[in-house]
Structure formats: C-alpha cells, structure tokens
C-alpha cells in the first residue's frame, strides 16, 4: 500500500540500527558446548615430539641454558679442580678455614685424613 513511503531513507537507517543491535548481542552459546569443543580439541591435539616435551619440562631455553652451563662447569672442575678447595661451610661462615682439621668428626672424612 504505502511501499513508496515505506522504502525511504528512514527504513534503511532502521535496518542499519537492527544490524547494530544484532551485532551487539550475538547469540549466546548453550552451557556445556564450549567444554565439549575444548574436549574435542584436546582429544585430537597432535602430541609434540619427545625432545620438545623434555625441553618444556626443564623450563624451555632458559632451563636448557642453565643445565648446559652447570654441566660445562662441573666438567671443567672435574679436570682442573681449584687449588684451594672451596668449602661451603666456610663460605657461609659456619667454620674457620684454619679449623678444617678439627672438623674431621663432623665431616666424617676422618678415616681418610687419619690414614693419609
């Protein structure tokens, strides 16, 4: 009947407003759907190779860097030990360096010192 009148700019504007309203209020997913989708995702997820899992388990690049440094240092000490041994008890101030001989009982290396 009034099609000419109805098909005006006002109607076009109204359609845009309706699109805006639809855009602002998307249909909400029913409860449980996201959980089911996430379950599927985990069920079909490719397993990473073994080396990558180990890499991740030790803390990634930083962890591997620390392990390499510690290994290299230990290897180095094995070949060329320091001339003056580093006693952790001395470092923390628990005993005097000169009193090492008195610590044989505590350190349980007395048998070695006595025999030597």
């Amino acid at each position, binding site marked *: 009947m*009034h*099609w000419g009148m*109805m*098909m005006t700019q006002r*109607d*076009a504007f*109204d*359609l*845009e*407003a*309706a*699109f*805006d*309203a*639809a*855009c*602002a*209020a*998307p*249909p*909400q*997913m*029913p*409860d449980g*759907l*996201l959980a*089911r*989708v*996430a379950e*599927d*995702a*985990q*069920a*079909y*997820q*490719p*397993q*990473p190779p073994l080396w*990558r*899992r180990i890499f991740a388990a030790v803390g990634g690049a930083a962890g591997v860097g620390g392990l390499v440094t510690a290994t290299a240092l230990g290897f180095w000490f094995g070949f060329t030990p320091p001339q003056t041994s580093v006693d952790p008890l001395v470092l923390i101030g628990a005993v005097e360096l000169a009193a090492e001989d008195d610590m044989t009982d505590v350190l349980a290396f007395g048998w070695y010192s006595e025999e030597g």
Partner: protein
Amino acid sequence: MPAQEPDGERKEPVKDTYDHSAARDADAALLARYAAGDAAAARLLAARLSPRAYAHAYRVLGDGAEAEDVTQEALLRLWKQAANWDEGRAQASTWLYRVVANLCTDKLRQRRTEPLDDIDAPADPAPSAEARLQDGARHDALQAALLRLPERQRQAVILRHIEGLANGEIAEILDVGVEAVESLTARGKKALTADLAAQRDALGYDDDTA
C-alpha cells in the same frame, strides 16, 4: 590488510567493531601452537572460535540445537586438520566460516523434507530463549526476517552486516565471486527492509525507540 577492503563497491557503513586482521594473526599463532601440542592453545582456540561459529550457525538456522551440532562438527574438522594446516592456504577463521556455512546448507537441505511452515517459523528452542530476550524486539524481528530470506542471501547478509566481514572474505566463504556477494547482500538488504517495514506496519511496531 585493513579489516574492511573497499572491494570496489558503493560506499556504505560497515560495522568495524572487531579487529579482524589482528584476530586472524592471533588465530594463526594459536593454531600453530595447538599443532605443536600446546594444551593452553587448544583451550584458547576453542574459546575464540566457538562463539563465532555458533553465532553464525544460529543466525542462519534459527535453531539452537542445530547450531550447536554445526559448531561442534565444524571445530572438530579444524582440530583434525590442524596437524597438516597450511598457513598460506587459508585463514583459520575464514576456513571455519566456510565449513560452518556448508554445514548450515546441509542442515537446511535436510529440512526441505519438512513442511514449509516449520522452516518459515523461527525456531525457538530452550537454549536460545534467554538470548532472544536479551536481544530485544528489534533483533527478534531482524532474526525472523533473516530466516525468511533465501539461504545464500541470508548467509551473505549475516556475514557482511552482522559479522562485519569484507566482501572478498565472504566470496571465499561462500565460494562465489565478489560481484555475486555484492548482489546477494544488496538483494538481501532490500528484501529485509521491505519485510521489516511490512512487519512494523502490521504489528504497530515502532522502530524508532530502540
């Protein structure tokens, strides 16, 4: 690439409430992490992509239960493809929209054996009732009018004017040319305008208030 390419069509306001370019990059990164076995990426991808898939399926089908089936099936196909995903082949969201659109077409074909009245009436199952109340009268009227559009026009109008995708991406999703998308959206908008105006006239629905 900007979110909205001009596509050589006449200028018209297009919603840009979503940064599609940034979203695509994030989706691609998450998909790569998912394929590498990152469990957190699986949850994040599900949370990012499911709502978009469900929203499109619901708007096209007007049925919460069917939209749920389509969403789960579409994402299942994505998970299965992830290990062999070729990033240069397709954007994850475009690929997903395409699968959703095709699954919706299948659902609508299945319905054709049912009486026409059942197709025309917007289905209103329990899961969607709350959402419909939230959307308000104008949105309900739009949804009902969308469901009366021919399927291809409906998909194109929803992707363009509600999802806010560019015509080039819609062409890829619907497997047609950009000109066909322009034609589908133009005809769809014209039909919607006439339909909504007729409804407002018939129901005394004042569209100025919302």
